[in-house]
């Protein structure tokens, strides 16, 4: 789908320092296989009651949303759309664990209330007072792109809309262990498992602070061989931002599809410093947007040693399980 939309604000809390772009010059590297996000001191931002009541992910969601709005020229907000692969995992696990271990009584309603995927978008709505469009997409590793796609449809329809698109996932030790057994995280050679909190503001109006433009977004379902046939690749791109993570089974799909569609284009990575999780691609798009804004790609993001000549157009390509393929074209 074609688009003509600007990303005007982005805020993140992740395995790199929060709410800033220090990873660009001084990335933090990890040797562990599971890393929690580097949280802010939330007492600075929330009431004692909120600090106690809200889980980490919800605090991250509210803080990134507030900071994104603060940094935007336009303070109004018309829509909130979140992508989350696992939803409110910690509360889900707490409720589930207690139910399985102690039986079906004396369960905590607050944990249940805070376990549904849409808790994130709806809490941001309460916090910002945004009563407009509100949705949550939860389609595995392409949840964020589906949220972005939804926002693009909304903005294509209405010229004056400001939409917030968020990507949120948290990870617990138990689920890291489960997902490792399921062959998703902590695999041979794979980067660390991590968490994502990203809030972006999108509009059709460019501002002095705009990061980049979204020119197109396509999300397809099928085997890589089908995708190569269906997807119509853009021309003249400077680099491809991929979800390469060090695990061959994952990476081979990127090199295979990129090789067929974009033979000599430099390949970039971000999971080496941000880790792997269901909405890590929100961080990938953020990283690509920052590179376009500054017109440079730092060395630690180069995958195949090819340095892009200029950096005006980056295609973000994210696949999940080799079945879901998301392409987001970003430009200066």
């Amino acid at each position: 789908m074609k688009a003509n939309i600007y990303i005007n604000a982005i805020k993140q809390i992740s395995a790199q320092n929060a709410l800033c772009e220090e990873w660009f010059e001084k990335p933090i590297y990890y040797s562990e296989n599971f890393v929690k996000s580097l949280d802010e001191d939330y007492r600075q931002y929330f009431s004692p009651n909120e600090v106690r009541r809200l889980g980490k992910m919800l605090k991250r969601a509210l803080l990134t949303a507030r900071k994104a709005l603060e940094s935007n020229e336009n303070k109004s907000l018309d829509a909130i759309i979140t992508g989350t692969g696992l939803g409110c995992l910690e509360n889900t696990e707490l409720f589930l664990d207690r139910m399985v271990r102690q039986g079906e009584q004396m369960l905590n309603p607050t944990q249940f209330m805070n376990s549904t995927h849409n808790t994130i978008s709806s809490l941001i709505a309460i916090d910002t007072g945004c009563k407009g469009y509100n949705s949550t997409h939860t389609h595995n590793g392409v949840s964020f792109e589906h949220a972005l796609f939804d926002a693009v449809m909304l903005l294509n329809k209405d010229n004056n809309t400001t939409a917030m698109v968020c990507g949120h996932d948290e990870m617990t030790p138990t689920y890291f262990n489960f997902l490792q057994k399921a062959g998703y995280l902590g695999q041979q050679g794979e980067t660390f498992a991590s968490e994502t909190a990203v809030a972006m503001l999108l509009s059709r109006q460019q501002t002095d602070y705009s990061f980049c433009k979204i020119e197109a977004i396509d999300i397809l379902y099928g085997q890589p061989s089908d995708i190569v046939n269906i997807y119509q690749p853009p021309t003249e791109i400077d680099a491809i931002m991929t979800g390469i993570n060090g695990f061959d089974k994952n990476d081979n799909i990127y090199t295979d599809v990129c090789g067929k569609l974009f033979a000599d284009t430099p390949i970039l990575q971000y999971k080496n410093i941000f880790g792997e999780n269901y909405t890590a691609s929100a961080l990938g798009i953020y990283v690509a947007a920052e590179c376009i804004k500054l017109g440079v790609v730092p060395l630690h993001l180069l995958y195949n040693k090819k340095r892009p000549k200029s950096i005006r157009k980056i295609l973000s390509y994210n696949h999940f399980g080799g079945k879901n393929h998301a392409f987001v074209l970003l430009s200066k």
Partner: protein
Amino acid sequence: MRIFVTGIGIISAIGNNATETTQSFIRAKSGICPIRYLSTSHKNLLVGEVKQTNEEMKRFLGISQSTPSIRTALMGMIAVEEAIRSAMLDKKTMSDSMSVLINGTTVGGMDKVEDFYTDFIENDTKNEYIHMQHCGTCSEMIADYHRCFKKVNTISTACSSAANAILSGAEMLRQAEADIVVAGGSECITRFHLNGFNSLMIIDESPCRPFDAMRQGLNLGEGAAFVILETEEHFNKRAVQSKPLAEFKGGANVCEAYHQTASSPNGNGAFKAMKVALKNANLQPSDIDYINAHGTGTQNNDLSEGIAIQRLWGNEIPYVSSTKSFTGHTTSAAGGVEAVISILALQNSIVPQNINFENPMPELNFLPVVEKTQNVKLTNVISNSFGFGGNDTSLIFSKV
């Protein structure tokens, strides 16, 4: 651009397909019974279960008994199969077109996770079920069974999930991002959310009584329902010998932003969802003949929704009923189940009764439909789905 509903598929406590569902309405036969299929210590609770075991559904679908699956996906596969057939589509046509599946679900494969959680930790004999917990995997299982979708997405806005899936699918058609959309939702009952709703103390131990002054809460239900959406142009090009089943006139998604689980007492969210849906459908309140209410039977919802209906329609209130006293609250699937029920009402000129109703709510100036109402002229029907977090969506379907 006109968007047509060209196929429907439904499985719920009141039937395994559209025909059985219509029959249940005509006979006023509820599907809410004591728990039979779910393994739980709350045996006293009444639920609207699909009257099939997973094994029976697998047999129906031709899936081998040894293939790991989850109840939500099995129900989804059945409803999608019926929808495709009723649209007179075949897998070849769908594979050759840009066919899209959008599924609304929240519990995904929690039914197996709660059974095997201890095993995941201790034994490693059920690990193939780990990734099935995710909502997205459930949608992919439905898509992979049918093997004809080029785009697959999952929406989770609690009890309005399926309604938002339909809304999103219609928008994809308008923006030429799809040729054929299969949208709706699927959700089985799990101990997880049965206990969740129970801990919130919003489950009625008797059959639920939507819009009754004595209502005590909801009965959980389960099911799956999907609609096939196509543009008028695409449908005409297919040269099918029959009329489309209905037109999707428009809808609205709003957020009440009032409270994490409760609705406001003056029904602002519900009011806005219905009002904006009417505007998007280019209709006046007086054009609506039937409101298929969200009507869960909880104190909070029915008051809030009732007040909103009263604010929007004043003294000229159309037929109103909640079909949750037939199906139970099918949570994330409800928007799909009730969209299909609304279309069945249009097709068969019936208004489903609001069974179990006895005592009018003193706060409201209207009564839900309590008697068998057949051979009525229905042109436009609005279907409400309101979720936790104030995720309120209304959809409008019309006779073609």
